[in-house]
C-alpha cells in the first residue's frame, strides 16, 4: 500500500497548492484512519486498481436526470 509521507504532502502543498492547507489538515492524511470514512493511503491504493480497469468506450456520467416538473 502507498504510504504518503508528511514531508511529501507539505512539499506538494507549498509548491503546487499555494499553501492552501494547514499542517494539521495534512497530518490527518498520514494517519491509518481519520475523519468519517477512510485513510488517504487506502483510498489511493483502491484507486490504483480502479484506474487500471479497461472500461472500453464507456463515457463518464452518461446518466441523465429523470424528467420532472420542476420548472413552475
Amino acid at each position: 500500500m502507498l504510504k504518503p509521507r508528511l514531508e511529501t504532502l507539505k512539499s506538494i502543498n507549498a509548491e503546487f497548492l499555494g499553501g492552501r492547507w494547514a499542517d494539521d489538515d495534512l497530518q490527518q492524511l498520514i494517519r491509518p484512519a481519520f475523519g468519517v470514512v477512510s485513510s488517504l493511503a487506502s483510498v489511493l491504493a483502491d484507486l490504483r486498481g480502479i484506474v487500471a480497469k479497461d472500461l472500453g468506450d464507456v463515457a463518464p456520467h452518461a446518466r441523465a436526470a429523470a424528467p420532472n416538473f420542476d420548472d413552475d
Partner: protein
Amino acid sequence: MSHPTPERQRPTSTMTELRSIRTTVAAFEDGSRSAVDIAHESIAAAERSNPSLRSFITVTAEHALTQARQADARRTTGCILGPLDGVPYAAKDMFETSGIRTTCGSRLLQTNVPETTAVAIRKLDAAGACLIGKTNLHEFAYGATGENGWAGTVVNPHDETRLAGGSSSGSAAAVAAGIVPFALGTDTGGSVRVPAALCGITGYKPSFGLISLDGVFPYCWSLDHAGVLTTCVEDLTTVARHIAMIPPALPPKGLRVGLVQGWEHKCEASVRGAFLAAKSHLLRSGATFAVAHLPDQAEARTVSLTIQLAETLTYHGPNLARARDHFGADMRSGMVLAQFISAESYIQCKRMLETYRRAFVNTMKAFDVLLTPACPITAPKIGTVEVRVAGQTMPIGNALTLFTSFFNLVGAPALVLPVSLQSRGLPVAVQLVGAPGSDAELFEIALMLERMLG
C-alpha cells in the same frame, strides 16, 4: 389510495405520539383542530424538545402560522388545495428558503438568508403545507452520524444517548418524535434512509433527478438525491406525488424479489431478525426469491467516496481561503483528502458509475424489487468512532451506509421501512430497491409489505 396505517413503536424518551398526514387531516375534517392549532402544537413541540433533540436549527414560527391561517381560510371557504393543505412539515437546512436562514448546518453560513426558495418547497407551498422549521444535519450533508460541532448533535428520540443517524438527522428525529408528520431530506449515500432506519420511520430516496434539487445546496452533483421522511409509506406516496411526477401503478403480481448474497450476515441479530421477518411475510404472500448479484461493494464505496469528495472540494474549496476555520472537522478532512485525488481517478470513477448503472438495470430485469437490511446496526451510542460488523472493524459512517450507498451510484429508487419486533428494542428496518424509474411500483410493493408487517 387508502391503507391502514400500522402501529409503530413509540419513542420512549421524548415527545408525543407519531403524527401521520392522515391523522392530521382527520383532525381538520372532524373540526377538532384547525391548521393554526396544529401548527402551534408542532412549533411548541419543536421548541420544547430542541434543547435535548437538537433536531431544528431554525424554527419558523411566524412563517408557519401565516401559512396555517391561510389554510384555515381556504378550508372555511371550501377551497382546500389537497391532502397537504394545512399540514406542518420540516425541511433539512440544505433547502433554500427565501427570507429564512439556510445554514447547511455550517458556521460558514450561519447568517445566510437566501433570496430564492427550492423548487420542492415551492411545490409544498402550492399544496398548502406549513413549513415549521429547518432541520439540523451533518455539516453540508457530509457524514452519516448527524454529529455537528456547530449546531449540536441530533440525538435519537428512542434513546437520547444514541445517534439519530445522518446526514438528514434533524428531519428524521423531528418525524420520529411526533413534531411533524413529514420532512424533506437529501441522500447522497444513505442520508435519508439511514436516519429513517435508526429512528424507526420511513424514508424514501427517489430515482436520480425525480425530485428537483433546484434550490438545494449541492454536496455532490453526481449522487445527490432529494428525499422524504414520514411515519408510513402512504404518507411517503402522498408527499412524493406532490413534489415529483410519479404516475399511478399497480402492485406487481407474482412478486420477484432479489436478495444480495451475504448482506443479512453482516448485521446485528435484531436487524437480521427484521430482514428475515420481512422475507418470511413476502414468501407467504407468494413472492419468489433469487440472488441478485451486485459489483464489488468495497470498490463501489471508493468510487462513491472519490466522486463525493472531489465534487464537494470543487464546490466548497473557494471558501477555504477566507473561512477555513468555519468548516467543521469532518468537512476539512474530506476536502483535504480530495485534494490528493487525481483528475484521472475522478473521471474513471464517473465512468464506473455508468458501468454500474448498465449492470444494475440488467440485473433488475429479473426482479421487481430488492429486499435488503437497511442498516447493519441499530442506533450507535453518541461518540462511536468505529464498529465491528461481521468480524470487521470499520468507521461508523462506513458501517451505517453499507447497504445504502450503492443505490445512489445507480440512481435507483429506494426506501426503508421499520419492522416491529417482539423485543421492542431500538428500531430496525428493511430496505426495498427498485429499478431506476420504477418509483411508482416501488411504492405499491412497499405499501403491501407495510401492511404485512403491520
